[in-house]
């Protein structure tokens, strides 16, 4: 089968529509993951053992099950319980929750990396708990986490095609509908692959720069 450039030009605008949604979903998903991950990391450190254990189990469970099934769960089960989510919202929550459990590990490594002396100094200066976190611990813990976090950001980007299974019209879904409509799979599928490959090659270089700039943990 021959590569048809005219067909590529014809479908490119449609695919670019999908790229917009792919990028939007990744950005929103990583914002959710950053917040949820921090929450998981803090809850796991809770002095209340029940809270810490429950969080640990939940994190393990989410990490041990496929994102696709989690997305189905959000998309099909929640409406039965009376919570109606738009496909994109369900997708962003699914991505955010799934990668939030990975981010929790990144936060944990970053927080554990702050020397004990800093905690003791904060106590000696009579700082309250929130003050210790906001002014002493997090400013030191966050920068070394940036490369690891960026790594998961790229990984999430590559998992956004799963959102097509819950009818989000992102890049993969646009490509599939174009392919099914014209009955030509070669160009749409290859273009999607090339798109992800380019983004990922760029991100390899970018990640290396981040690692040089901020060092690495975990």
């Amino acid at each position, binding site marked *: 089968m021959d590569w048809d450039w005219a067909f590529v030009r014809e479908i490119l605008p449609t695919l670019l529509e999908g790229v917009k949604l792919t990028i939007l979903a990744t950005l929103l998903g990583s914002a959710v993951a950053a917040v949820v991950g921090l929450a998981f990391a803090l809850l796991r450190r809770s002095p209340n053992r029940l809270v810490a254990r429950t969080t640990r189990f939940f994190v393990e469970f989410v*990490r*041990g099950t*496929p*994102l696709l*099934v989690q997305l189905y769960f959000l998309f*099909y089960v929640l409406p039965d319980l009376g919570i109606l989510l738009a496909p994109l919202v369900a997708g962003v929550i699914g991505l955010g929750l799934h990668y939030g459990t990975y981010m929790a590990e990144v936060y944990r490594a970053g927080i554990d990396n702050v020397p004990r002396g800093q905690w003791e100094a904060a106590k000696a200066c009579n700082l309250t708990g929130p003050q210790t976190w906001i002014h002493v611990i997090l400013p030191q813990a966050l920068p070394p986490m940036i490369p690891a976090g960026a790594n998961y950001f790229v990984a999430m980007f590559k*998992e956004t095609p799963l959102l097509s299974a819950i009818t989000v019209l992102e890049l993969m879904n646009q490509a*599939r509908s174009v392919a099914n409509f014209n009955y030509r799979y070669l160009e749409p599928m290859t273009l999607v*692959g090339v798109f992800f490959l380019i983004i990922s090659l760029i991100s390899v270089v970018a990640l290396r720069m981040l690692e040089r700039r901020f060092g690495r943990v975990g």
Partner: protein
Amino acid sequence: MSQWLGYIPLMLEGALVTIELTVLGSALALVMAFLGGLGRLSPHAAVRALATIYIEFFRGTSIFVQLFWAYFVLPLFGLTLTPLQAGIAALGLNVGAYGAEVVRGAVKSVGREQHEACVALNLTRWQCLRHIILPQAFVIMLPTFGNNAIELLKGSAVVSLISLADLTFQAQVVRSQTGSTVVPFVTSLIIYFAIASVISAGVRGLERHLTRGLDGVRA
């Protein structure tokens, strides 16, 4: 309750397909990981370049895209794969690329003095790799390999979208036939988690077995 009890065998059948995919995919991934990882450490520039291209290509394009490409585009080049074959190939090659980096890192982390000892003992390159380097490096690889196998298990859910009747696919079948959503999806999540737990327990056991007697030998 009784309405969906009849569907339990269907879900278990799906679970078997998922397990089959995971086992065969992991086997392929293991082979590819060693080929790719050792390839990147090869003294021949051509082999190194080939291994690098393989790794960057399969890590760079998403598993989803690779699967669809294998299933829908390869037939256009005259290579028709069944959904199961396409699934095993895509999963194995994808996870194998991630595993290759693990192999490379582990082999490089074995101390220089071990290589020097090989030279001193007049071992060939292959003997050195087989008897000295890999037994030490493999222990380092194991925990990450376990994580990779779980990633593969999770990735295998995607094959339901190319009409392979795995666990996720059967959950969708049950949903569309009974209209119940909680039962099929919660059941499949629990089965996935159970399989993942078995994998991580197995890897931990294997690690204990292989590190026996190595205490104090490794830094």
